[in-house]
């Protein structure tokens, strides 16, 4: 049972709905909560669930993601028979292996998966904020003798038509899957988290390729095919905080929800820590002139302004008289004297010039990475 279950994180998405924030970096590498990048949640869940091998499948602007993940040591994934592996496109004898869909990405990386030789594969997406015990999901998968288990969370019925909805029998067996149904029959929304028996999935993908059947997407092709074949497919019910941060609005909202010590995610629970690549910085420095209230401040910050209900990530500088409210400021950003930032996401390394006003009252304002807003430094 060396590597009973291999986790595969689909981190390939360009995430166009995050606009400027994913122009040069992959969506799972976008910062969150002051100390994290979004993918840290999936990676930490894996580590805490006792998963020993994680493949991160990516093809869009992987530089930051690669240097963030490294060999996985930040998540304790550098032990023996253990590892985090970045899987990117490559060329093979029969041609180039680009990834054309979620399950196609798995197909293209079959050699890697077989080299780990797992009994089960856990499919995750790298862009959700949640804490989940995948080992518990595996236990249920085994108990039910399922060949596929789909994690679901109950959503309000009025929102259900935005999700893939799983209709189940009394025994949690999925009898029907409807993608974004107009008239949803249940509230069980797919979280895009799957446990497959690897040999069965592999056979299906290989046969589909051979017979030129489109099997490139889990939701569109693979799950319907499993149901059609009468495979034992079950839901696994997740109860807890879960947030898709695929839009500017939802990313901002999730950050704001994160500030409170007793947030719904239970972020300070030390028995299920979220790990990240350590950034070296001295303690944060709150100067004589500052006021900081209802806010999170990370190491390396130097704060002389007024901070209210905001997150300052590593190495943020806020000068005297600057006011930051209801905002998420990413690492290395500088907010100059007298600037006012409200309801905004400020990208890594951005500079908000003196007395500049960023007002996101209507719609969350976004300042891009390394963007300089307002008059250049007059020093």
């Amino acid at each position, binding site marked *: 049972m060396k590597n009973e279950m291999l986790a595969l994180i689909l981190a390939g998405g360009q995430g166009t709905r995050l606009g400027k924030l994913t122009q040069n970096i992959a969506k799972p590498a976008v910062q969150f*909560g*002051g*100390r994290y990048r979004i993918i840290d949640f999936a990676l930490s869940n894996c580590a805490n669930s006792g998963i020993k091998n994680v493949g991160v499948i990516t093809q869009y602007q992987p530089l930051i993601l690669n240097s963030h993940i490294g060999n996985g040591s930040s998540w304790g994934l550098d032990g023996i028979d253990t590892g985090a592996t970045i899987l990117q496109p490559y060329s093979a004898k029969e041609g180039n292996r680009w990834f054309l869909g979620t399950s196609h990405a798995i197909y293209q990386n079959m050699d890697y998966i077989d080299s780990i030789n797992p009994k089960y594969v856990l499919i995750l997406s790298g862009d959700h904020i949640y804490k989940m015990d995948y080992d518990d999901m595996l236990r249920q998968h085994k108990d039910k003798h399922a060949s596929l288990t789909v994690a679901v969370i109950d959503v309000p019925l009025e929102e259900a038509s935005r999700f893939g909805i799983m209709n189940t029998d009394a025994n949690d067996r999925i009898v029907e899957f409807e993608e974004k149904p107009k008239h949803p029959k249940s509230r069980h929304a797919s979280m895009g988290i799957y446990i497959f028996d690897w040999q069965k999935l592999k056979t299906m993908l290989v046969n589909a390729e051979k017979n030129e059947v489109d099997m490139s997407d889990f939701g569109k092709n693979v799950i319907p095919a499993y149901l059609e074949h009468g495979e034992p497919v079950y839901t696994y019910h997740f109860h807890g905080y879960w947030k898709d941060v695929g839009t500017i609005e939802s990313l901002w909202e999730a950050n704001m929800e994160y*500030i409170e*010590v007793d947030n719904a995610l239970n*972020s*300070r629970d030390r028995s299920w*820590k*979220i*790990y*990240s690549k*350590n950034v*070296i910085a*001295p*303690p*944060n*420095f*709150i*100067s*004589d002139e*500052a*006021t*900081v*209230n*209802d*806010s*999170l*401040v*990370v*190491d390396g910050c*130097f704060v002389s302004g007024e*901070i209210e209900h905001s*997150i300052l990530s590593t190495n943020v500088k806020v000068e005297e008289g600057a006011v930051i409210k209801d905002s998420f400021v990413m690492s290395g950003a500088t907010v100059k004297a007298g600037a006012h930032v409200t309801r905004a996401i400020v990208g890594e390394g951005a500079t908000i010039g003196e007395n500049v006003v960023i007002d996101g009252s209507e719609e969350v304002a976004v300042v891009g990475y390394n963007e300089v807003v307002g008059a250049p430094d007059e020093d």
Partner: protein
Amino acid sequence: MKIDKYTAILGNVGAGCLDMGGLTKERPLATLPFDGKYRLIDFQLSSIANSGIRSVYAIFSGKNVRSVFDHVRSGRVWGLNTLLSHYFPSFLEDQEDCRMADREYYSQLLTYLKTSGSDQTIYMPFDILCNINLEQVIHVHNASGGKVTVVYKRLPKTQISEMNEILQIDDTDTVAGKISLSDAPEIAPMNADIYVVDTPWLIEKLEEEAKKEQMRKICFVLRDLLAEAGALAFEHSGYLANINSVQAYYQANMDMLDPQKFYALFYGNQKIYTKVKNEEATYFDADSRIKNSQFASGSIIRGAVEHSVVGRNCLVDESASVRWSVVSPKVQIHKMATVEYAIIDKNVQIPEGVTLRGSADNLLVIGKGQEITGDIIQ
């Protein structure tokens, strides 16, 4: 820089001779917490790592294995556990006279130096807190062609103890001799006991010392050689603190609340590395009131904090107040408690409403894990 050219040796100068008010009872000076998230040894190891030196021999007292191992482990954080690096902690019996060494001390030290095959050896003491660019010192040393270069710092006499020595430096930046503390000017060039020495010459001198009946520790041997060898004196212009008393330790922490000194120590072009911890951001409650203070990660601040350094994973609860104090990691200050002019070591619980108060001249020191049952006002 090519491999194996340099070896670093770390050790104590004053520690063991000095009164640190119980702060070094269960740990060596090397692992004393500093500025909320560091230990003193982080500064020596980081200076070494930043200059590309990959061979480190560190001398500790035999009773401190646990504390050192816990923090430094294999030296991974400082890049000292790679295939091409060498980190070796030596745990030796303490001598009655803290300046003296025994046969084992020299046997291990000389073995390490000889097998290192290094051209130069860098000595750094745990007592001196600074972030020094060793590449620069090595460069100057090599250009001078001398056998030994010593780093010094001009400090007010009040910051210098009897364990230190004052150098007499001539116009050519050469050590000409020593001055007694009483004869020294108000701002005196204190030997920082950081040395760059040619390894073969050092081995020769240490072998001579090892033959003596009464052997001194390496830094005292080096001190004696400075004038004789015409050592080059290199002035450290950055921040430097001499951790030789409780007061000096407190002052160094308070210095970090002066942005200039803080930036000088931490924001040279050299990073200070420390053991990795995964802590959440510091949370400042809607009612917190902060003035000129520093906070490491993981803390929750609901009360008032002024002119203080607060370590990792602390709690300052509602209506509690902390002023002019150094609070080490994992200290919990409960509701309406008051802490003033105090150094609170790790893992101390301060109950609701209790007052702990020292004064600027008479700091209150609460030891690691000490149980607090009521007010302490000194």
